Structure formats: structure tokens, C-alpha cells
């Protein structure tokens, strides 16, 4: 099979993985080497579906002995199969990188005959890139489900990021759709990656020359809407992973129909808005100081699709408003609907020198239609009257027609600002 045909098959097969970024790592190129990693990744191109192309995202092979219903490469799928050799992936990566097409490589794989063999080949790709090609660009390796800890420890020496996919929020979901996988096995892989990262951080603190292990940390992906599990199940799993496994990111991927899809899957994909709301909640929990009980109280199984999670929280906690923009502390400002992190910083800096006025909010391009009901500045007395009115929820409910256009799932995984 020609390399071109393999690429078509193995790129197509990899496009269902959500994470695409290369941010969070910095590495200068070695003298005479090729490639570096800047803090924020670069999108080198965009496809007509509006998504960015940053990494060469491919599978080593899409042959797989596993039969996970949600996966296009499951053994029971009738897709065309192909397998790259190690050298083919190395050459492809270098050829693309040298032309400035990509930031690096995101290599995943089906389980060709057993997890360890497949993982070993993936590691070999990364090793050759680093040692033989002096490649300093970004490398993300997917931990093959069920591969040994020893291999994971090796992988992290060459990869910037490792990820083991948790796949579905509950063990019961895995039992239904991916009976060969268990949360305990996946989390034990995560554990082993986490421990290696920790060890390496301790080592490098002592000896600057100590080998660095997966400096970009680890992430995971959860598929949303393939089973009946609720947003609460999903967010509980996500926050427990953030807490216990020290993950950099959890990616939420709305289950989408795949070619020749498994009859065990639901026929419709969940609204993209659900994925977007999950990303928003994720950001609230990671960066805005919220906890899961606030975002999804006991009696809320699912996030409100029509109101963003911060707005929903504010409407449930109206007694905490209005907030005075000229005096409220940072953590209170972060909880104001319509105020993102950057604007909170702007307000804090600017108000040292002069009072914030209503017109300033317009200039900052905050979401006036949300914020005006929740903050007191000089002249919005009229809007504040609505704070106690049941009408407010209706006013703030988003028009469904705007939703899909405005909010694009991959975009929200990057910005997530609320």
C-alpha cells in the first residue's frame, strides 16, 4: 500500500480524538536540531469544517482486536485497515514539520495484536524522532489501553504529553460499550504516568540534567452522550480525575455518528451545546473557583442547555448579587456572569486608577446583556430591579437559533471562557 493511501486511512481514523492542542510546554530547539515548543500551540491551518490543524494526528495502525462500540476502529467495523511502519511515521513527521505544516505529532493506535507490542512501536517512533532526527517539536503519545507500566515510563521520556482515555464516565458504561476496558485498568495507567511525572519533577529539581518525563502532563478524553450517564456523572468523574490523577485537561467529546457505526449506539448524537456546557463547567471548576456542588447541585442531574453554568448558578444564588465592580475582590468578580478572567484582571488593574463606569463595560466588550443584571456601577439601577424578578431567567435564556453557530465544540475546549 502506498504511503499516501495509508495516510488517508490513518488520518481519517484519528480525527475522532478531541484533543489537538500542544500548549503547556516550552522547549528551545537544540542547536542544529529541528523544532521547538512554545507555550501556546500554533494552528497551522484550518479545514472547511472550521477546525484547526496543529498536529499531525494519525494512528500507527487501525487494526484493533478490541470491540469498543463508539470507536470507528473497533474490530467489528468494516473500515479499510492500514499500518504505518515506524520509519514512515518518523519521515512523515519530519517532512511536514520542516515545511512548517505542523507543531508536532499526536500518535495514537489501534491495538494491533497486543497492547505492549503496539505501545513499543509508538515509543520507537518518538525515540527515533528525538534521538536520530534531533526533533524538538511536540509529541503526544496515547497510552495504549492495557499496556505495561514499564512501557509508559519509557514513553514519557520522549513524549511531551501522555494520555490514557477514560472513555466513558461510569464503569457500567464501559461494560455496555467497551467490555474489554475497565476504569481500574485505565486509572492504573494514569497513576503510573502521574507517579513518573512527579518523580521526574523531584529529580529535575535536584539535578537540572535529570531526564524530564512528559513535561506537558497528562490528559484524557471522555465521550459524551453515547450512554445514559448524566452531566453530573461526567463532571464527578472529571473532578475526581483532576484531583487524584493531577490531569492537565479532560476533553469532552460529543459522541458523533461514525461510519459503519455499531448498532449498540444511540442513533442521534447529543446536542453540541451539551459538550460546550461541559467545557464551561470544567473551566468554572478549574479556573474560576467553583466546586462541583455549586455547578451541579444534588438535584441537578444535567446542565441547563439554555443558560451557561455560571449564569445558572447566579440565578440560583441571587442573594449574592449585585456585585460592586469597584470594590469586590477578585474571587467575587470571577463569579459574575459575563465576566471572563481577562476582563476581571482588566477591571482590577484599571480601578486602581479610576472608577469603573457602565460605559467601560461596553468598551471591554463584556457580555452586557448578562452582566448588567448582576453588577452595580453608576447607572444601571433600572436593570438591577430585575434581579429579584422571576422574569430574569426568561430574559437571559439564549435563543436556540444562535447556539450552534456561536459555540463550536472544539473552540470551547480551547477558550471555555464563560
Amino acid at each position, binding site marked *: 500500500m502506498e504511503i499516501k493511501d495509508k495516510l488517508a486511512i490513518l488520518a481519517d481514523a484519528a480525527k475522532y480524538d478531541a484533543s489537538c492542542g500542544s500548549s503547556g510546554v516550552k522547549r528551545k530547539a537544540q542547536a542544529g536540531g529541528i523544532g521547538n515548543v512554545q507555550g501556546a500551540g*500554533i494552528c*497551522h491551518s484550518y479545514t472547511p*469544517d*472550521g477546525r484547526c490543524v496543529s498536529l499531525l494526528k494519525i494512528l500507527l495502525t487501525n487494526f484493533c482486536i478490541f*470491540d469498543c462500540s463508539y470507536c470507528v476502529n473497533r474490530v467489528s467495523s468494516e473500515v479499510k485497515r492500514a499500518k504505518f511502519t515506524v520509519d514512515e511515521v518518523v519521515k512523515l513527521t519530519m517532512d511536514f514539520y*520542516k515545511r512548517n505544516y505542523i507543531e508536532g505529532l499526536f500518535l495514537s493506535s489501534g491495538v494491533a495484536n497486543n497492547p505492549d507490542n503496539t505501545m513499543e512501536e509508538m515509543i520507537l517512533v518518538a525515540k527515533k524522532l528525538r534521538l536520530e532526527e*534531533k526533533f524538538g517539536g511536540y509529541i503526544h503519545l496515547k497510552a495504549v489501553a492495557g499496556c505495561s507500566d514499564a512501557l509508559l515510563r519509557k514513553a514519557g521520556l520522549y513524549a511531551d504529553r501522555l494520555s490514557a482515555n477514560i472513555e466513558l464516565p461510569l464503569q457500567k458504561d464501559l461494560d455496555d460499550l467497551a467490555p474489554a476496558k475497565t476504569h481500574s485498568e485505565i486509572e492504573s495507567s494514569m497513576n503510573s504516568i502521574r507517579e513518573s511525572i512527579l518523580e521526574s519533577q523531584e529529580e529535575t529539581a535536584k539535578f537540572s540534567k535529570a531526564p524530564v518525563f512528559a513535561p506537558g502532563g497528562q490528559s484524557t478524553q471522555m465521550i459524551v452522550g453515547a450512554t445514559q450517564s448524566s452531566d453530573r456523572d461526567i463532571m464527578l468523574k472529571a473532578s475526581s480525575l483532576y484531583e487524584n490523577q493531577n490531569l492537565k485537561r479532560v476533553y469532552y467529546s460529543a459522541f458523533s455518528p461514525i461510519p459503519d457505526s455499531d*448498532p449498540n449506539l444511540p442513533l442521534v448524537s447529543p446536542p453540541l451545546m451539551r459538550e460546550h456546557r461541559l467545557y464551561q463547567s470544567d473551566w468554572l471548576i478549574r479556573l474560576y473557583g467553583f466546586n462541583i456542588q455549586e455547578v451541579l447541585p444534588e438535584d441537578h442531574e444535567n446542565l441547563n442547555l439554555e443558560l451557561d453554568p455560571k449564569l445558572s448558578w447566579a440565578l440560583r444564588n441571587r442573594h449574592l448579587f449585585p456585585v460592586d465592580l469597584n470594590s469586590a475582590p477578585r474571587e467575587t468578580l470571577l463569579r459574575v456572569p459575563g465576566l471572563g478572567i481577562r476582563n476581571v484582571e482588566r477591571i482590577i488593574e484599571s480601578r486602581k486608577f479610576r472608577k469603573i463606569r457602565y460605559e467601560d463595560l461596553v*468598551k*471591554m466588550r463584556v457580555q452586557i446583556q448578562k452582566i448588567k443584571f448582576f453588577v452595580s456601577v453608576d447607572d444601571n439601577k433600572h436593570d438591577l430591579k430585575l434581579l429579584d424578578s422571576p422574569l430574569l431567567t426568561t430574559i437571559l435564556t439564549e435563543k436556540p437559533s444562535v447556539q450552534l453557530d456561536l459555540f463550536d465544540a472544539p473552540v470551547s475546549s480551547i477558550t471555555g471562557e464563560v
Partner: protein
Amino acid sequence: MYNVRFAADFESWRIKAKQLLVSNIKPDEINWITEETGFHFGQEWTDIEVTDSPRIPREYFEAASVVSCFRDDSTWTLLYRIAWRILHEQRELLKISLDADVRELENRHKSVMRDLHKMKAFVRFKEVQQDGKILYVAWHRPDHRISRLAAPFFKDRFNGMNWIIMTEDETINWDQKSLTFSEGVSSHNAPSIDSAEDLWKTYYSSIFNPARIKIGAMKKEMPVRHWKTLPESELITSLIDEAPERLKVFYDSQRPNATQEKQLTYPEIKEALKSCRSCDICQKATGPVMGEGPLNARIMFIGEQPGNEEDQIGTPFIGPAGQLLEKALLKRGFNRNEIYITNAVKGFKWIYQSSMRLHRSANASEISACKPWLKQELNLIKPQIVVCLGRSAAQSILGKMVKMEEVRGKFFSSSVCDKTIILPHPSSILRIQNPNEREIAFNRFVEELGLIA
């Protein structure tokens, strides 16, 4: 009014601005002139010696050096006015992002940084041979005068290559030793072909999802003015045009879902099974063959699929393999009537050969298509022991391919039952040609059946 003439770069501007600030010249008293000739009202500024510099915060210089690349001459006036205001009005001016001048500075800063970012993203090198060496050449048109700002990035990233980036303003050269700048050139000086572009285009079209067309979002991030130098942009029109056809192929590949929303009773499953179209097997077979046995059975056997006889009569495991199973069960003191017996795939898959209907193994997608029916049976019977006979049944339950010799004959907990065991399919014993070996295989099977007693 003073006419201040300088080359349109930050360093030359800075030297003049310093003199003017020290001389207390107000912002609106200056004409900043970057072109060489041209008549302007006012008095020509003559250079003066400056000994001590005005005290301006470092942040200002950081921002100004970037904003000076903004391709609009009003920038010089803006930069001077802000410097003036920092000295005479408010030292912390830059922190007041709500101030109109500061906002304009920030906007222009953002615009230059965005252009810089796009240059890092959209420069496309082409590999050429020159004097026996490999050289990477790119032509790019930035919005602003950012070649000097961008050069260090490319030097660091493509350190081990010889490369040239041409722009209309300036050409950047890197020979793995030093970074040099030469005159700008127009786009037809760029090489036109490259050996990797074909693969890159293959990649680009393979990752495109035809179900979502968002041309606006694409153009916003990848402005059309840059398309000329992006090889992949040639594909955009055809990708969009072909999307409906690709989608049709995609949707045609979708199979109807056999999953039932609620738990059905035995007769309901049997009835519903008749109209299943999750795969094509049952259309060609006489009909689906549902599992049989007591609904309160303690043990459930799962085989592969009905054979020729089973298909005609409509009962599982009554052909040669079924008889062998029955014989083995009897040896262990089981009566088949106390066991619920079914198959992973409910229909008989066959080909016509030598005037016979010959059994064909169900493939993985057919096994998976039939799984919802098996799940209905499992949930209905709730067996305490599940016995998978053969690889197909094991694959259906485990969700992965297995090797029989590695997995057979030991109990484990699966997602459907705490006590699950895999044994070879009786028909695999029947297929053994040598009578002695067949005898051994049968005895081993009987022995393993003893585990479930």
C-alpha cells in the same frame, strides 16, 4: 510644527522621539515623516545631542517596539503621544486600559501580534536543491512590517536547516550560523513545487469532517489573503463541493439499531427479533433462531450461530454440534433442559457450495450487531454462570478478540456475569479429522464442563 524625518523602524523613531521629548515638543507640534521626499508645512527638525533619557517605564518600550511594526504611519504619532502623556500626565497610564490612547495601543499591539502569530502559522517552506545543498524557501505576505520580529522564532525552530523567508518588505536568511536580512522581493521569486505537498493535501482532506461546514470560522482564522501561499487552500472548494456526496456514503453505511429501550419478555424478544435489520444474515436465512431453555435457568450457554438444521427447525443446538454438546453434558450429569442455550448471532450465515448450504463464520460486525439481542436474553435470564462456546461468543461478551488456548477453561468475572467461562465450540471438536485427537479433545471438553457443576 516640526517635520521629523526618519526611517520607518522603531530604532530610528526612538532616537528622534527621545530628542523631542527632552526638548518638550508637544505631540501635536510634530509631523512624523517616513517617506524620503515630499513637501510638508513646518520647520525641519534638526538632531540635537541628548545626554539623559526621559524616564519612561520598560513596559512602554516593550509595547512600542511591537506596535511600531503596525503598517500605518499614524502609529508614530500615537506612540509619541503616549510617551508624552506618561511623562506629563500619568506615569501608570499603560495600566489604564480604558483610556482611549491605551486602548488604541493595545488594539494595534494585538493586531501586530496576531499577524506575527499568523506568520508563524502560515509560512510554508518548499524544499529546493541549491549547490548540492537542501534549502527551504518560503514567501509570505504579512500585514505588518514584522520580519524582524518574526526572525528569531524561525531561527530557533528551524535551527538545523538552511532557510529563506521572503516578504515584500525584507528577506530573512538563515544559514545555520547567522541571521541576515536582505531586500524584499515579490511573490514570483518563490519556488512553485515541493515534494511533500501532495501528502500534506492528502492529510488535509482526510481530517476534514464533511458533516460540518463552517466556512466563516475557517476564513476568520485563515484569512483568504493568505491562501495564495498555502498549498492546502487549493482543496477547499472541492472539499466543500464533495461534502454532500461523502455524507451520503457515510449515512448509507449506518446500520439500524437493534437496541431496545426497555427489557422485553421472552415472547416479545422472539417477535421483535423477526424484524431486525442490523445485519443481513437473517434475510438470507430461514429466520432468526432465538435461544431456548427455562427462563430461571442457572446456567446459560452461548454458541456462535445456528447451523443448517437449527435454521430449518428454528431451535438452537440440535444439529451434530448440539448432539455432541448434549452427550458431553450427560457425562457430567447435566440435562440440557435445565440450561438456557442460545447463540451470539441469531441467524444462519451460509454460502451455497457443492449443492449444500455451507456454514460461514459470522464476522465481527455481525456479532456486534446481534449483541443487543443477547443482552436482552442475559437480562431476562440473569444466569449465575455464563458459558461462552467458541471465539465468537467470547468476543461478543468480552468485546475483544481472544485466542482460545489462552482463555479457555477458567472462570472470570465479565461485564455480564460474575462467573463467566470460555470453552471451545463443540463443532471445533467435530472438525478434528484424527479420531484419537478428537477423542482427547472431547474428553478435555467434558472435563472442563465439570467446572460448572
